[in-house]
């Protein structure tokens, strides 16, 4: 778990904090009635409020507030019953009003915590400093025309949650685990879809390095990193850059940087002279945001079961190992799928099939749980056929592949292909007799003490029965004769 950057002057420790911008799932924008949906022709989801027309006023969207509260509850954080919106002033072509409405001094959510699990099985808690609501800006498009830039305001005014972590992260792996965990929680809550490629979740990464036991040194902020892999790479590269600066007698400037994955470097985004003075002040168009305790409680009571609790329950309720439980709860849909399969069946058998053959099949065919030809009930039906002895485990794999291809039920496949397991002892005895008759030499060797040949006879009998023999009965019949 310890991550050390070996410099010329000795080991350096890494200090990282993350600011995650998560786009809130909501019908309409944070302060206007325009649609917040992704995509759409440019400038088709824009109200007069979003475009900053004279005299237009923001009105808070209560659903966005509910989403922020749900997220805060999911992060085990303090919900601030009174918060406030401030204006962050700066000029840019895709910022229609010339200010972003955000929560600077009084965020809606205070301190919380996220538990992460690392590859070596160790567990760490990363502190959450705050979560606040703010508006997204529009999009500037500089590549549409040689001389002009175009502006798409569809995103302008969409609600974002900025989730700020404490500088508790000490390795790139922890940063990755934190982001994955955060994304998992957001998806469970249904408050953000977590799609980093579409930009609905983006991270600003604060990186500094220090010698063990030192206070924090100057940090740099790497803006708008849009994949977990890039976040981990950017941290590594930026930390190395800072170590190099400190060790060659320089000092790191506090600045905003960009990560360029193609060149594998971070570079300065703006110099100190261009540093913005955002002139934050309380937005006089909005009253303080006051939420009632009872509303928070009601939101809490409708909160879905979150990944940690669900994993715990899977372990105790289904008796499956922690690792398996962890894999199954990684996504809500997987967990739901598993629970449908496991209901009223052998939960371990269910876990093995879901994690094993089912996941492998999805991977192989490039499908997701949502568009899988085998439904949870379908897989469950197949497990029922194993349990009641209709098919054995080996035939089951054949049935599964067939179901994957045809989308038929296990029973239908078994019926169509005549894969029903043979439990008729007469038929088994007949097969045993014919195998022994055809292998007199092997029989003699066995009788002479070569016990290992028992397996050979089992295999031959199963083969003679096209795999459909009940393995237990075949064993029993052979033992009797031999």
């Amino acid at each position, binding site marked *: 778990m310890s991550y050390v950057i070996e410099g010329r002057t000795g080991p350096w420790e890494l200090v990282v904090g993350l600011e995650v911008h998560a786009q809130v799932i909501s019908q309409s924008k944070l302060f206007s009635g325009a649609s917040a949906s992704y995509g759409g022709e440019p400038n088709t989801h824009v109200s007069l409020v979003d475009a900053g*027309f*004279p005299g237009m006023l923001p*009105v808070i969207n209560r659903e966005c507030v509910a989403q922020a509260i749900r997220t805060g509850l999911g992060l085990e954080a303090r919900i601030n019953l009174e918060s406030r919106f401030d204006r962050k002033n700066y000029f840019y072509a895709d910022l229609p009003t*010339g200010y972003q409405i955000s929560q600077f001094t009084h965020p809606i959510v205070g301190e919380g915590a996220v538990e992460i699990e690392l590859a070596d099985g160790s567990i760490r808690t990363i502190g959450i400093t705050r979560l606040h609501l703010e508006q997204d800006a529009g999009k500037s498009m500089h590549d549409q025309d040689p001389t002009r830039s175009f502006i798409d305001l569809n995103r302008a005014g969409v609600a974002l949650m900025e989730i700020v972590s404490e500088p508790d992260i000490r390795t790139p792996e922890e940063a990755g685990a934190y982001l994955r965990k955060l994304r998992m929680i957001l998806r469970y809550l249904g408050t953000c879809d977590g799609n980093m490629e579409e930009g609905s979740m983006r991270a600003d990464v604060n990186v500094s390095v220090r010698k063990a036991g030192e206070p924090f040194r100057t940090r740099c902020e790497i803006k708008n990193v849009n994949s977990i892999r890039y976040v981990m790479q950017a941290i590594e590269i930026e930390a190395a850059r800072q170590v190099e600066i400190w060790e060659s007698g320089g000092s790191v400037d506090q600045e905003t940087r960009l990560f360029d994955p193609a060149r594998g470097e971070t570079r300065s985004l703006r110099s100190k002279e261009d540093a913005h003075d955002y002139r934050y*002040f309380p937005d006089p168009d909005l009253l303080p945001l006051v939420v009632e305790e009872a509303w928070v409680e009601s939101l809490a009571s409708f909160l879905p079961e979150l990944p940690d609790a669900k994993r715990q329950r899977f372990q105790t309720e289904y008796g499956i190992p922690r690792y398996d439980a962890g894999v199954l709860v990684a996504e809500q849909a997987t967990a739901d799928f598993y629970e449908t399969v496991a209901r009223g069946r052998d939960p371990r058998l269910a876990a093995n099939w879901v994690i094993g053959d089912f996941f492998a099949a999805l991977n192989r065919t490039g499908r997701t749980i949502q568009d899988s030809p085998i439904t949870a009930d379908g897989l469950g039906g197949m497990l029922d056929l194993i349990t009641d002895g209709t098919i054995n485990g080996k035939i089951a794999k054949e049935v599964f592949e067939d179901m994957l291809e045809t989308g038929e039920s296990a029973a239908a496949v078994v019926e169509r292909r005549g894969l029903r397991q043979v439990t008729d002892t007469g038929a088994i005895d007949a097969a045993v007799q014919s195998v022994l008759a055809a292998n007199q030499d092997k029989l003699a060797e066995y009788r002479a003490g070569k016990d290992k040949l028992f397996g050979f006879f089992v295999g031959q009998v199963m083969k003679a029965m096209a795999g459909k023999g009940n393995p237990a009965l075949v064993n029993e019949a052979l033992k009797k004769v031999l």
Partner: protein
Amino acid sequence: MMLTELTIAAAQAGLKRRDFSAVELVGAHVAAIERLNGRLNAFITVTADEAMDAARRADAVLAKGEAAPLTGIPLGIKDLFCTDGVRTTAASRMLEDFVPPYESTVTANLLRDGAVFAGKTNLDEFAMGSANINSAFGAVENPWKRDGDADTVLVPGGSSGGSAAAVAASLVMGATGTDTGGSIRQPASYCGIAGIKPTYGRCSRWGTIAFASSLDQAGPMARTVEDCAILLQSMAGFDPRDSTSVDCPVPDYRAACGRDLKGMKVGIPAEYRVAGMPADIEATWDKGIAWLRDAGCEIVEVSLPYTKYGLATYYIVAPAECSSNLARYDGVRFGRRVPAPSLDEQYEATRRAGFGAEVRRRILMGTYVLSAGYYDAYYLRAQKVRNLIRRDFERAFQQVDVLLTPTAPSPAFAQGEKMDDPVQMYLNDVFTVPASMAGVPAMSVPAGLSANGLPLGLQIIGRSFDEESVLAAASAIERAASFTHRPAIRAEVV
């Protein structure tokens, strides 16, 4: 009596009785505008044809006996209220050709009640000014003249100077104004009419171009207190589109005008007796005190100790908000654009060409007081003082029902006076700013003439959402003063 001399209350009755038609009533005013607006410059945009069409529709409604409260009443609309399909400029080059596709809540309320809009009235650019000399469309002339001096052009006050001049000269029967630090009350005082700034939150700000959001409040201007009450009745009301609008029932304002004042406690704030106050203003104030005492009020000396910081605080808070509110005028989506090779240069060129000197000055001041390193010393401290001013009023209103003060420290001054020093100009608002800072309702009512024959107003300040007491006290002063003086330039004088 000419139709342009009528009060709104009298015109309502006349229309209902069909003594005259809405076409006649509106036509008389449109004619007056056509005759006098070239001189007074009270309107930036005159919508004569639309007004006459509306008048014809009003007559049809009246014929069916279905008149709404303001059916057929011609009004002027301060060109800060967005009007659907009618150019709305804020008296700025920036919005010279801006035609909003939406109607402000306040004007929509007036239209709902049948009002006829004769045009958009002139103002100081983005409502920043106290003399209506900061308009990109030229200064407004006050229709009043000093005794024996027909030549000197006086200012109408500001920022709602066009509305005040239009109402005083009988170009319209009433008008909308907006008041951020005195922009309804001070021009009302300078032009000898009545005007009320209601409680902050009483009228929706939706669709009204913002100057300083925490202070801006729409209100009516008219020749009588009762007419103001009639207009406010229509303008006021909760609007879910404005988060600062207050969901509080709107009482019968017209009824309040006739209310008996017996037992009402009237506070006289000691701090408003500023050094160097002209004797005629002092005398008018004393007369007002006497009239209210005669009407049965109890006069109480009160103290508003933080009043002296009102103006300084205002000139931090209002510019701070304006610097942010006016950032949207960037040449990107609407309004004036001066193209330039880069975005930053386009901002600079557009805003340099679009904003006048006073607007630029306030944006600079506001940007400064919000900047890192100055925020605590200016903006934050101003907010704290603002709270103290608010508390001043709360404390005073534990003792009294309304406060009585002069509206402005002088009568209308001449164009060209007080123009070299912006601070001198800012001092015009010294009596009106504190009520704005506290958000409480305040009204100016004509009470007398200055030594040189110009109107002087008295200000009545009330408790939050108690416009009724304000209107009642103002009506009493109006009755006692029997202010029948009329300006030299007016519709009736041909």
